[in-house]
């Protein structure tokens, strides 16, 4: 990834899940029923029931996910957090139908995941921006619209809206290699929003950014998710990031990958995500709560099985 502005390597001061900390005895407080009530009978954005995923041949099998139950309500922001190898990325990839579950049932808006993918019910952003280097910013954002044969005029208008939404109005004609890492990631987020999906899947989209850019991007994503009202499944390594953004933090542990805890942040959608929130004692106490939940599970000794 190229950066056009000099970004001094900022030491990562965040709480990372693989920080060595003594295990503390802590009863697993499991949200008894995270099933949201959908008064109008609208199906939840994601409903996973007993989903398992194993990789590898018969001889050397790795269980990436074991018996995962997860429901994400429409419009809900859910962060998946856990040590390397806990299967949080795998879970997201299953929802995206980039992988198929080995067992269990997985529905996206009440449909099988493959059907939801074909219907373009979700938008996706990865850790790498994954922009096509030969396309301009505008053409990159237009890619999904172009593939699904949106009329030219509509395409143009939508791209203009999105470029403004992510604050890249002056860069519509730039190429990805002329942008910094943070700007590239903003283009990727704009692209994921192009078809107004009701569900956003994000796999550590800010993982490769420096701390300052990262905090700015978090605030922007919070604003965008509020504006679009889409449900978000957000995979992250960072505890403050998860608490800052999410309505609910889903804590996972490795070997086998499973959900060990769920913490409702209690920070309402209407609360402005800004510097004040980061310094709020309530925010700190939630960060502490998530950290304790993470260390309650067996801490992965090595990151041997990423994903």
């Amino acid at each position: 990834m190229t950066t056009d502005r000099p970004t001094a390597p900022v030491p990562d001061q965040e709480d990372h899940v693989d920080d060595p900390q003594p295990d503390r005895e802590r009863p697993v407080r499991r949200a008894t029923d995270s099933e949201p009530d959908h008064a109008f009978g609208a199906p939840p954005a994601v409903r996973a029931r007993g989903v398992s995923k194993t990789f590898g041949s018969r001889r050397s099998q790795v269980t990436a996910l074991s018996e995962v139950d997860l429901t994400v309500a429409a419009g809900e922001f859910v962060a998946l957090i856990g040590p390397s190898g806990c299967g949080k990325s795998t879970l997201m990839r299953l929802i995206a139908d980039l992988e198929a579950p080995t067992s269990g049932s997985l529905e996206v808006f009440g449909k099988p995941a493959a059907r939801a993918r074909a219907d373009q019910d979700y938008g996706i952003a990865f850790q790498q921006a994954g922009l096509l280097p030969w396309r301009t910013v505008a053409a990159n954002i237009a890619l999904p619209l172009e593939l699904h044969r949106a009329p030219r005029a509509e395409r143009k208008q939508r791209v203009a809206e999105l470029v403004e939404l992510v604050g890249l109005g002056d860069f519509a004609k730039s190429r990805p290699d002329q942008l910094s890492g943070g700007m590239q990631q903003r283009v990727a987020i704009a692209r994921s929003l192009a078809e107004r999906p009701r569900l956003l899947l994000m796999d550590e989209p800010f993982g490769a950014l420096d701390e300052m850019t990262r905090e700015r991007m978090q605030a922007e994503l919070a604003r965008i998710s509020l504006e679009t009202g889409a449900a978000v499944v957000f995979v992250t390594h960072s505890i403050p990031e998860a608490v800052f953004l999410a309505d609910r933090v889903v804590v996972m542990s490795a070997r086998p990958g499973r959900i060990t805890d769920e913490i409702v942040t209690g920070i309402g959608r209407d609360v402005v995500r800004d510097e004040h929130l980061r310094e709020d004692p309530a925010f700190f106490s939630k960060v502490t709560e998530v950290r304790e939940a993470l260390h309650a599970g067996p801490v992965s000794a090595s990151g041997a099985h990423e994903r």
Partner: protein
Amino acid sequence: MLRAAVLGVLGLLAVAGAWEGYKALAPEDGVVVGDNRVLPRTTDLAMPHVWDMLQRLGEPVSSLRGAAPLWQVVADAVLVSLKVAAAGWVAGTAIGLLLALLMARLRLAEWGLLPWIVLSQTVPLIAFAPMVRSWGSRIEIGGWEWPAWMSVALIASYLAFFPVAVGALRGLQSTDRVHTELMHSYDAGWWATMRRVRLPAAVPHLLPALRLGAAGAVVGTVVAEVSIVYPDGIGRMLVTFAGQASGDPEKAWAPIFGAIVLGLVAGGFIALLGLLLRTYRRGEAP
């Protein structure tokens, strides 16, 4: 641009200077170690002066009345060979690209075809040039006869398709995973992914392959002209004029210059193509 031009001229002058310097300093009979001559003779017969060679280009090709100047005859032959080589390059590139697409589409095709494609290049060109000619001379559809130049172009394409097939396949397989997964998430089909992601991403691999293909087409054309006995091109002229070298040593060098120009034109064309496709070469070292 100017810098490159100046460097190019300096390079030419350096070669001419080395030629004349060796001619002036080395013994007439060359350098002989035991029975082997390790450095060539410097007689005017073996190494004519640079200016004599250039002067000869301006003189008539033969003593016949009304003979065209030598440079013009050479230029005509270069043009004929260039057309044939271009036809061979286009055909070879098309075949190479189709094979690469087929191999990228089907794993089975790659396993089945790639070894044969590699094997095809181990057959020496000279071996089957006469066969191509004799097959060609038997083809006659209606009033149309297979012309000799098409046999030459066929052999040129045989040398050109190989680097294109291999290079394009490599390029098509070099697509970033994040891009293919993105296209999968868009439910894009094989052709949409090919057109929008895999083909553009293959360009940085494809250009060197096309350059090798062009070089192959030029070499194939010159060699095939000789072995098929196709009289109009530069290849045949190289042999004919070399035969007259004992009486007219400077004349033999003219088609050699012509062949060099032929190669430069082919290389320049590919450079131009690279310029046209520069959007797809972002991220490549300049």
